[in-house]
């Protein structure tokens, strides 16, 4: 009987980890459904970008309040998780505060964790207020109706609960130390800057009740963390992990440089250059542009899983600002939703995608949204984790134009003009130099 706790803990830990690895594998498989794109050049620059943007949060600074609160939550959460190492050892071996032998250093660590945890709670409370009381415009938009809005709130509440469990655990522990109870070796009060203030909440609870409370909070904390880990892949909060690979694989070229699709290049060269021998056609010919998620490249799909739904892109978008339907955040959310749907389809059909009569273009994103984009790159500039919604918009436009000839009429006229006169308007190429003879 004595080992039942340890066994239970070990089982939970293994189950939580196995489940998480399985989920991550699935996400990885889904991302790799995308087309190939080379993002492994210039490694030093990639590391620098990741350190600057993901680790250093450099793109958050444009909105100072959000930046500081986010920094609290981010730093706090990461550092407090060092505590998890101790929890795992204690849980597996039935020890209590195994790292306690570090003495003053240990007390210092616990004290810092408490202060950080307090900042995390502060950050989460401010975020909840911004979303639910101040109702910031970018959190109120229709993009977030339903699950996404709840998702954001759930996470903030869970983080507050986790931190509260941490405080109440320490408070009970502190009380027990004062009572010199059992193995609760005395630590200085300064190790518990926050929880010593909360200890009064336990009133005159008996040592047994305090031990119960301490154990309850301990289990709540660790089960909470394992649950959180497994919630991540279904949530916008996956960004806490994916921000790192996503910034590493950033587009390092000038933002204005759009891709020149290979399959178009082959066709155009074949027309213009009689001596050009085209490579053997691939078994399944590649679509021009993108109709569904499989036609996008893997980085665009990684982008979709990384999106935190913060809406900075949309709040900078000139189309969205002037009441158009387009929202770059929705482009990313739609891509992720469709990709999840495709992944579930593959799981159901023994590993092969079976046509479900749906596609990203049409069922999720409409042509009206796509045609409102000015390709201004504001969304790309704003995104704190280097997501590129514009590249998806352009790939979908390419499909509309090259596979479906479904451009708006005025644009078809523009195309015809370029083809016939070498200018987007109806002017004769012979008049190109007329300006030179004007006064």
């Amino acid at each position, binding site marked *: 009987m004595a080992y039942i706790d340890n066994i239970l803990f070990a089982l939970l830990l293994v189950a939580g980890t196995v489940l998480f690895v399985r989920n991550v594998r699935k996400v990885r498989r889904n991302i790799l459904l995308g087309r190939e794109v080379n993002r492994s050049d210039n490694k030093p620059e990639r590391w620098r970008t990741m350190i600057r943007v993901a680790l250093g949060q450099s793109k958050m600074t444009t909105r100072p309040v959000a930046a500081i609160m986010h920094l609290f939550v981010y730093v706090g959460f990461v550092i407090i998780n060092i505590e998890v190492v101790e929890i795992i050892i204690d849980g597996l071996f039935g020890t209590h505060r195994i790292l306690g032998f570090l003495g003053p250093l240990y007390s210092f660590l616990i004290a810092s964790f408490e202060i950080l945890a307090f900042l995390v709670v502060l950050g989460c409370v401010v975020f909840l207020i911004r979303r639910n009381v101040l109702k910031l415009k970018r959190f109120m938009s229709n993009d977030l109706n339903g699950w996404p809005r709840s998702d954001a709130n759930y996470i903030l509440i869970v983080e507050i609960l986790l931190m509260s469990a941490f405080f109440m655990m320490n408070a009970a522990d502190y009380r027990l130390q004062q009572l010199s109870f059992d193995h609760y070796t005395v630590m200085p009060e300064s190790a518990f800057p926050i929880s010593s203030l909360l200890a009064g909440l336990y009133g005159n609870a008996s040592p047994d009740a305090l031990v119960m409370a301490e154990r309850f909070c301990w289990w709540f904390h660790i089960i909470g963390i394992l649950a959180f880990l497994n919630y991540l892949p279904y949530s916008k909060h996956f960004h806490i992990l994916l921000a790192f690979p996503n910034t590493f694989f950033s587009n390092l070229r*000038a*933002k*204005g*440089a*759009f891709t*020149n699709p290979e399959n*178009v*290049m082959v*066709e*155009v060269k074949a027309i*213009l250059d009689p001596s050009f021998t085209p490579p053997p056609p691939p078994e399944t010919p590649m679509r*021009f*542009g993108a109709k569904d998620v499989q036609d996008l490249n893997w980085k665009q799909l990684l982008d979709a899983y990384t999106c935190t739904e913060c809406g900075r892109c949309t709040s*900078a978008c*000139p*189309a969205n*600002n*002037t*009441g*158009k*339907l*387009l929202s770059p955040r929705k482009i990313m959310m739609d891509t992720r939703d469709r990709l999840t749907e495709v992944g579930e389809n593959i799981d159901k059909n023994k590993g092969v995608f079976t046509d479900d009569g749906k596609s990203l273009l049409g069922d999720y994103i409409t042509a009206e949204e796509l*045609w*409102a*984009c*000015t*390709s*201004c790159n*504001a969304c*790309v*500039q704003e995104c704190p984790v280097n997501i590129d919604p514009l590249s998806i918009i*352009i790939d*979908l*436009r390419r499909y*509309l*134009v*090259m596979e479906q000839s479904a*451009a*708006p009429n*005025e*644009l078809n*006229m*523009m*195309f015809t003009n*370029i*083809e016939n006169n*070498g*200018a*987007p*308007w109806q*002017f004769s*190429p*012979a*008049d*190109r*130099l*007329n*300006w*030179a003879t*004007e006064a």
Partner: protein
Amino acid sequence: MADFAARGETPEILFWVGCAGSFDDRARKITKAIVRILNHVGMKFAVLGTEESCTGDPAKRAGNEFLFQMQAMNNITVLNGYGVTKIVTGCPHCFNTIKNEYPELGGSYEVIHHTQLVQQLIDSGKLKVEGGEFKGKKITFHDPCYLGRANGEYEAPRRVIEKLDAALSEMKRSRANGFCCGAGGAQMFKEAEKGNKEVNVERSEEALELQPDVIAVGCPFCMTMMTDGVKHFNKEDNTKVLDVAELIVQANDL
């Protein structure tokens, strides 16, 4: 360019005029201003004239990659045929396309935007500028998306404007946060989607809040959009919309 080739000479730089700069009434004035500056400093430059054709930018942004690549390859054949190495453009869209999208298709050149060239000429002392009629005037600069965010050039046009001893005043959204004029992504050639405001009206409103004497631009499409926006508010008598090159020419009587 053909004349230079016939004489067996090579110009220092090729001036890529662009479709707007060749055909649009207002933009032709910008073209002439750029030429005045080039002539004034005695730079040997050429234009392709009737051999120039659309870079393909609007087609590409609209998703017509075939048409873009056809245009690009034909232009590259012409440019490479003349052995062109250095190009200045009067339009950020041409600038971006030739600089960033032509190399993969076989056309690699040193490409600069006209505001960058003007800044270089001032820095090297070849072009002396004075403020003239703009001295002390309030000027705000509207960043073209394809010069600014797309290519990271925010300073050159501002350095040039500062040389006019003018009061450069910034809009709320400027530089990397600049707000599009509404013409990019082939919007210039179509009606806008349903919404509650035109993008150029939103942007002009922001510029006019500063009550500037001049809204300076660096792109013929921004020129159209901002001019229309200023007219929308009936402010054309108080606020002029001028290209950076025009500012230099007007201030110095070039």
